[in-house]
């Protein structure tokens, strides 16, 4: 184990996988000479050369399709977006091509491609550069969607995403890149897609949360324990499609209360789906309506105070947990 940043954990995953399999290559804006807009691909051009680490023109639709076309003939591309906000220009390649080619060809294609890059708000980047669009991709049959919150999860899950034979949308946290955690150095370390992680065990309320708000929720669990004596269980699904809903349901059947947190907008969000799963499969176990804490239902503002208000802060999660525990 080594204490390294989320950024370096991703770098290790890329390097180890590219050493393991010569069919893997990385494309995107500034991934080569610039060493990655967020330095995730540092040193890779020097080690693997320009055919395997290729700087792309600012042409998201074009280079997304480049990756999909290469995957159609058996290569294993990794497509980096400078942010997922820019991938909006490429969504036809992800949704209409990558996600559907296997189905509409009757299974004739595999699509071993990973689409990755930073997601969510950073510091005062305003509306076009601050959004958590995982619900859009999780909506689409044919895609897998992963959103790691820690350096350890980032490394283990990215390695699995790259090894997967299906298209994986891999959402990194723009404000998580500098965050450190203990990460296994073993190059065989992977974490399976589709398995939730119980980040903190508890008995009184289940908090379901992924990506950067995991850290808000961890702070919330400490406050709840200290101030209210509430023992919260924190579950990070990590993979949003396919989601390990059973771990969540098992927890809710024990705690009988649930708060679901996400950075994205509330309407048709990831949490809306989890609420549906809970009411359909664990209705009789609920002692309170499920509460959701989300990003505000507004475009992302520039002003620092409004930006803080937009994000699902620990204090809102605390309020929601108290509400479902009837402890207000």
């Amino acid at each position, binding site marked *: 184990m080594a204490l390294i940043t989320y950024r370096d954990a991703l770098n290790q995953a890329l390097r180890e996988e590219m050493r393991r399999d010569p069919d893997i*290559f990385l494309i995107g804006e500034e991934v080569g000479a610039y060493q990655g807009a967020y330095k995730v691909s540092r040193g890779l051009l020097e080690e693997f050369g320009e*055919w395997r680490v*290729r700087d*792309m*023109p600012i*042409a998201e*639709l*074009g*280079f*997304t*399709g*480049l*990756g*999909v*076309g*290469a*995957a*159609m*003939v*058996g*290569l294993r*591309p990794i497509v980096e977006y400078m942010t997922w906000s820019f991938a909006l220009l490429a969504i*036809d*390649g992800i949704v*209409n*091509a990558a996600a559907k*080619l*296997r*189905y*509409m*060809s*009757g*299974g*004739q*294609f*595999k*699509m071993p491609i990973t689409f990755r890059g930073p997601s969510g708000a950073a510091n005062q980047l305003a509306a076009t550069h601050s959004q958590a669009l995982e619900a859009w991709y999780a909506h689409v*049959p*044919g895609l*897998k969607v992963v959103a790691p919150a820690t350096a350890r999860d980032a490394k283990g899950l990215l390695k699995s995403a790259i090894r997967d*034979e*299906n298209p994986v949308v891999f959402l990194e946290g723009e404000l998580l890149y500098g965050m450190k955690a203990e990460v296994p150095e073993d190059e065989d370390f992977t974490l399976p897609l*589709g398995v939730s992680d119980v980040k903190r065990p508890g008995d009184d309320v289940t908090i379901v949360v992924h990506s950067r708000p995991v850290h808000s929720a961890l702070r919330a669990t400490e406050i709840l324990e200290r101030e209210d004596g509430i023992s919260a269980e924190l579950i990070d699904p990590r993979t949003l499609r*396919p*989601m390990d*809903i059973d771990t969540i349901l098992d927890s809710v059947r024990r705690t009988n209360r649930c708060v679901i947190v996400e950075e994205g907008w509330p309407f048709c969000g990831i949490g809306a789906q989890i609420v*549906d*799963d809970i009411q*359909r499969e664990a209705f009789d176990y609920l002692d309170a309506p499920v509460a959701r804490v989300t990003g505000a239902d507004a475009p992302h503002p520039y002003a620092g105070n409004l930006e803080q208000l937009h994000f699902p802060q620990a204090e809102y999660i605390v309020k929601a947990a108290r509400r479902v525990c009837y402890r207000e």
Partner: protein
Amino acid sequence: MATNITKSDELLGLDRDALVEMLRWMILGRRFEERCGEMYQVGEIGGFCHLYIGQEAVAVGALTPLRKDDYVITAYRDHVHGLLCGMDPGRIMAELFGRVAGCSKGKGGSMHLFDPAVGFMGGHAIVGGHLPLAVGIGYAIRYRETDQVCVCFLGDSVANIGAFNESLNMAALFQLPVVFVIENNQYGMGTAVHRAAAIENLADRACAYSGMQGWTIDGMDVLEVRGTIEMAIDRARTHKLPSLIEAKTYRFVGHSMSDPNYGHYRTKEEVSQFKSHDDPIKRFIERLVKRQVISAADLDSLEQEVKKILDDSVEFAKSSPIPQPDDLYSDIYTGEFPGIRRRDPWR
């Protein structure tokens, strides 16, 4: 930029077998599409179905010189391109019928034919969406250091979409062996080319990309198409340089089955004029007869041969079962996908 290459050598030095083979493909393409039209009328084929009638010289001229290991990708008017790559006509017809014996098990339909085993990479129905894929195939060819090429067909309307510039730029920038063939049939659906593109010859856009050569050619002359593409293929295979060919052609039928052959956006006279004076099959036959390459008896036997293939393909399609209900959820992912039916208890 017109090449007029066929004037110097009217038959490109091709032997009789090669010429007859090209004619056979053109007739098969025409008759296959006519049969599709009939099957659509009787309700065996549904959805959007775009026929290739009138444009045969482009696909036949462009694809007969390819090697078996080359790649072909096109848009939604794709039946004849698939046939030329070597797809089984019965499996194409079964796909159009929505049957499990179809190339895509009945899940793709007319606009999404695929057969990577013969290098046919589809069959893509979002206008412009497949150009970046062609670039990716070209990238993979360079990555693996083989001497294959990728031929990418596109309609005239694609020359105006963003993906066109992004793709041609990358093909030139990375020196990829991709040949882009614009099938300019004069209309993007019902919009005449001059109403959508601020340029007369679309291939002139090649000059925007270093190392790319452009040709605007008579797409009703199968040998002019073939002669041009042979030069483009050589540039791709030997020199890793992309090309842009604009083959001016015409579709004799409506945009899709729901569009009449003439009406609001083009006149009956215009369509008749093309059919009587610029039919690519008639033109090729006249040339072959004049040069005594074929006789009327040869034509009869080609038609008979093609008719048998079509009868068999319809028979094959009709004999295939429709998909099973479980097929709704198959082929979405490679491997297991837990809980895929969990939210669907009613079906």
